[in-house]
């Protein structure tokens, strides 16, 4: 686990509230209440509860490694050093290319600016010290609360030569859902990018044939976005109406 980097809150009375691990990081939304009651009065007493949802934030050096991490220089630092060096050689400024680096749960994530994704992927694949030969595809995630960067594309790259695994994360706003395609670098991403387009509406510029792959060709909408309903119909069970899964009350 990475070191908690909480700055002490100057307004809080000394030792009154312990620092929360979740106080740092990237805010992706807020939750109200507890029991999902949003139509009518909430008599549970939890109606006023407000919770901020944060994903793990940027980590600082040293990053450590996958096993134990802790303090000290590790595999993740080696990868980051090699990547920064290789980008430098290409005439790119690493600080502009990599927004932030997150080390969490023994995994390292490089958040890359979308216009530099192909350059980073090519460097990761070709640099002898990096050699991430195998891309395991792309997974889309939709964060409607992450304003200006709602759509995330997550790539996992595996180096068989060095036996390492890293993650790249790229974002695009809902208003401009374009990302550069990396099919040219990793041909295996052909179907994966089509799948992510099909489900999230992310348009991969430069893909040879970006068409729907799972849903019918004339389908409207992108089913795995958070604002797209699951669908389903209520069913009767022992005299009671059970609503469809996405209409049921849920814990927020």
């Amino acid at each position: 686990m990475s070191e908690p980097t909480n700055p002490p809150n100057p307004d809080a009375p000394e030792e009154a509230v312990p620092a929360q691990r979740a106080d740092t990081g990237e805010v992706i939304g807020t939750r109200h209440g507890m029991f999902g009651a949003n139509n009518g009065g909430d008599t549970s007493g939890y109606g006023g509860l407000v919770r901020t949802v944060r994903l793990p934030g940027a980590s600082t050096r040293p990053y450590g490694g996958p096993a134990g991490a802790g303090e000290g220089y590790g595999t993740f630092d080696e990868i980051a050093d090699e990547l920064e060096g290789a980008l430098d050689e290409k005439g790119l400024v690493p600080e502009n290319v990599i927004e932030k680096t997150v080390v969490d749960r023994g995994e390292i994530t490089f958040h890359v600016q979308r216009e530099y994704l192909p350059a980073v992927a090519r460097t990761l694949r070709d640099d002898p010290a990096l050699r991430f030969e195998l891309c395991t595809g792309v997974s889309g995630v939709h964060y409607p609360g992450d304003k200006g960067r709602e759509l995330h594309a997550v790539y996992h790259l595996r180096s068989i030569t060095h036996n390492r695994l890293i993650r790249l994360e790229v974002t695009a706003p809902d208003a401009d859902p374009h990302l550069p395609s990396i099919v040219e670098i990793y041909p295996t991403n052909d179907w994966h990018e089509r799948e992510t387009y099909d489900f999230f509406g992310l348009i991969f510029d430069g893909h040879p044939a970006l068409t729907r792959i799972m849903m019918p060709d004339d389908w409207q909408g992108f089913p795995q976005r958070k604002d797209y309903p699951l669908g389903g119909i209520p069913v009767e069970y022992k005299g009671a109406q059970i609503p469809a899964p996405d209409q049921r009350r849920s814990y927020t």
Partner: protein
Amino acid sequence: MSTPSEASRASVRETTEGPVYTVTGGDWDEIAAAAAKSDDERIIVNMGPQHPSTHGVLRLILEIDGETVTEARCGIGYLHTGIEKNLEFRTWTQGTTFVTRMDYLTPFFNETAYCLAVEKLLGITDDVPDRATAIRVMLMELNRLSSHLVCIATGGMELGATTIMIYGFRDRELILDIYELITGLRMNHAYIRPGGLAQDLPPGAVDQVRAFVKKMRKNMAEYDKLATGNPVFKARMEDVGYLDLAGCMATGATGPIVRSAGLPHDLRKAQPYCGYETYDFEVPTADTCDAYGRFLIRLEEMRQSLRIVEQCLDRLEPGPVMVADKKIAWPAQLALGPDGLGNSLDHIKKIMGTSMEALIHHFKLVTEGFRVPPGQAYAAVESPKGELGVHVVSDGGTRPYRVHFRDPSFTNLQAMAAMCEGGQVADVIVAVASIDPVMGGVDR
């Protein structure tokens, strides 16, 4: 055979692209006559999605010139059921019930990969009891056997070798009996849960697995006798579905395909999970890059799996099969009744009759579930088909925020075009069978 009835005749439909024939079998003469009449040599054949040789609802679009395939494309998505979307509306524990249905021939791999990812998010990877991990490994290796048996059996059937099909399904039945004994179900088990297992092994399971290993060792020789040295079988398989290492890396093919190109890449050795580093087994490879090499690798992997299953049985010590944390351990007091796995009547008597707190706890955990700290994790296991990766995102709630399965069948099927183009139509069947795609996993 009498003359084909009116219904089975090839029907013709004129389109702007040329005539379209719908063929149902037994009406080839008309097609051949029409093709001979046509001045255009180029024919596009739509094979599937309902075709006995395409491993489920896979549609192959082949452009053929005589007997040669000049272009091959896949049409997939016929089995898409939105499992990843559905997962976002159920608790973390209910997720196993969904993921087990993805690649329905490798349910234990789907469940384990998903649970490993959830456990990583929870930070309880090291707390999973040893007994649960050993049973997981045992079930996964039995599952590798049953999956490879289906691959070899159906692959043989598609070549016209029905005997090997009967043998493969006969032996798979023995494994399904073991699944039924342990989990109550032959498929779709939802037996592996975040934190451990749904319940412990029932009495007699260890003996039955031991008896199976002994019997299967004996039966393995029959596959060698039937197929390995069979000249007809070899003639159909050798140099068919060729894909070398560079091709594997480009298309992202893993599993027996990449190992048939000579690279001993196996996540059980490279990035061990579930304690695989403590088991003694080999990773077989071949250097032929073809369907025959993949067949030999699958046979050898089955032998290695039998070795691992025996080692699991030897190290099974009595103990818990679920993490100790009662905030996560879903009340696993289940009992195997005549109608499958269900609530244990003893447990219901206790929570309904004697302990109100236990009842509240049971109710909360079953209806609300547990919360998982925000973040993302990737867990990968070596499924019989290759790297099965699971990307799980949590927003701190009681349900997954996003679950994505990198199914090896999906990725490997992309290699179909590279394996088939330039070859013969009949070899397409062999090449697809050697990829061993399962459409439930491809389409999810």
